[in-house]
């Protein structure tokens, strides 16, 4: 029994010594320490500060993906697509794209404008709009309208102007060009 008593104790001491050595070598190794020694509550607060941005960003990403997949893939339907799908569309809300037909624009009593949009091959849809058109709204510019179709007329509650990526001086004759093509 005397031998048995002594052996576990020396084994324990040996184990302690080894783990202590391990600890010391960990401490000497830079990889072991990268944050200050903190009490438990401060640690928890710190963890919250570190991980909460990920939760917020993950939610934001999910929201953007859902909205993006729901809207961006078929952002609008053209005039021709709309006319060929007329029977199946019902009164669902969608975005319609077309070019504002010149001389078709009249203001209506709803504070908006009535006009026609045309597609690529000249087919037209009449539009009754109830919203104030944006500043750039004018004939011959492509527009994207939000609304629904009813008996061949598109009832729009929002007009967005889809301007082109060309930039041309408004009064070219009054501007001297600095190199490049003449304006």
């Amino acid at each position, binding site marked *: 029994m005397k031998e048995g008593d002594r052996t576990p104790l020396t084994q324990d001491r040996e184990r302690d010594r080894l783990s202590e050595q391990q600890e010391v070598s960990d401490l000497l190794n830079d*990889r072991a320490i990268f944050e200050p020694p903190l009490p438990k509550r401060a640690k928890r607060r710190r963890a919250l500060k570190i991980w909460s941005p990920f939760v917020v960003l993950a939610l934001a990403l999910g929201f953007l993906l859902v909205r993006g997949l729901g809207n961006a893939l078929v*952002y609008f339907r053209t005039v021709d697509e709309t006319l060929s799908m007329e029977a199946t569309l019902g009164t669902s809300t969608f975005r319609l794209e077309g070019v504002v037909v010149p001389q078709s624009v009249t203001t209506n009593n709803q504070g908006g404008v009535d006009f026609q949009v045309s597609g690529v091959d000249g087919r037209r849809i009449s539009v009754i709009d109830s919203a104030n058109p944006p500043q750039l709204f004018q004939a011959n510019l492509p527009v994207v309208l939000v609304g629904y179709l009813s008996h061949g007329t598109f009832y729009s509650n929002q007009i967005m102007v889809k301007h082109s990526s060309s930039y041309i001086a408004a009064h070219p004759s009054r501007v001297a060009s600095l190199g490049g093509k003449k304006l």
Partner: protein
Amino acid sequence: MKLKIAQRYLAASALVAIAATVVLGLFITPPDAVQGNLARLVYVHPAVAWVAYLAYGVTTLASSLYLWRPTRSLRWDRLASSSAEVGVVFTALTLITGSIWGRPAWGVWWTWDARLTTTAILLVLYLGYLALRAVPMPADKRAKRSAIAALFAFIDVPIVHESVVWWRTLHQGATVASLGMNAKIHGIMAWTMLLGFVAFTLAYCALVVFRYRIAQGEDSLRERQISQWQSERLAQSQSDADRVSELLDNANSKSNVKMV
């Protein structure tokens, strides 16, 4: 020290170029035939967006160089993180100026078209990259993880750029960087746009150098802190160990006494 001098020159030239862009853009260039004065935003908005692409490109390159063993160095990690942070600032400015332009030109502050949505995703992805960098980790581990994250985040950049081609969008196509390279802007308007690109690229360079120098300082500060914590913990563990062996010695001697 050299970096500090480079930063000074870059900042000064960026300041001059931006001032010239503002003067030309707001006062000298003619209004556009369709958009009128609104078109003046074309001298800042695309340039700021280009810098965001550039910044993420640099982050991706630096991250790859970190991941590739022969060139692995924390310097690349610092460059990647600096460029990403500046890129996030420019992405936010792209979204803000785009929104300000969209309200009068399109009629809406925001719409869920592909260009706008993918740009917002870009901002969220790189904010995630910066959040990952804020997690306490050993420097080499953090460098490796964030480099891998940076490679994934960059996938969105070509998607943003091509979104106006791949999908139907309210946002217009490219004015300058289309495949045929037939620019749709000429004369002084084109030159001012080019100047804007140069000006904001210079500003990007100055900001990245500044941010890189801060990263250097923060790293040496961290090293110093770590060695301080090390010596504190070492001292603590040694005094603990001393106490333990003292107790053990006592226990041992007592049991020895008993045993004898």
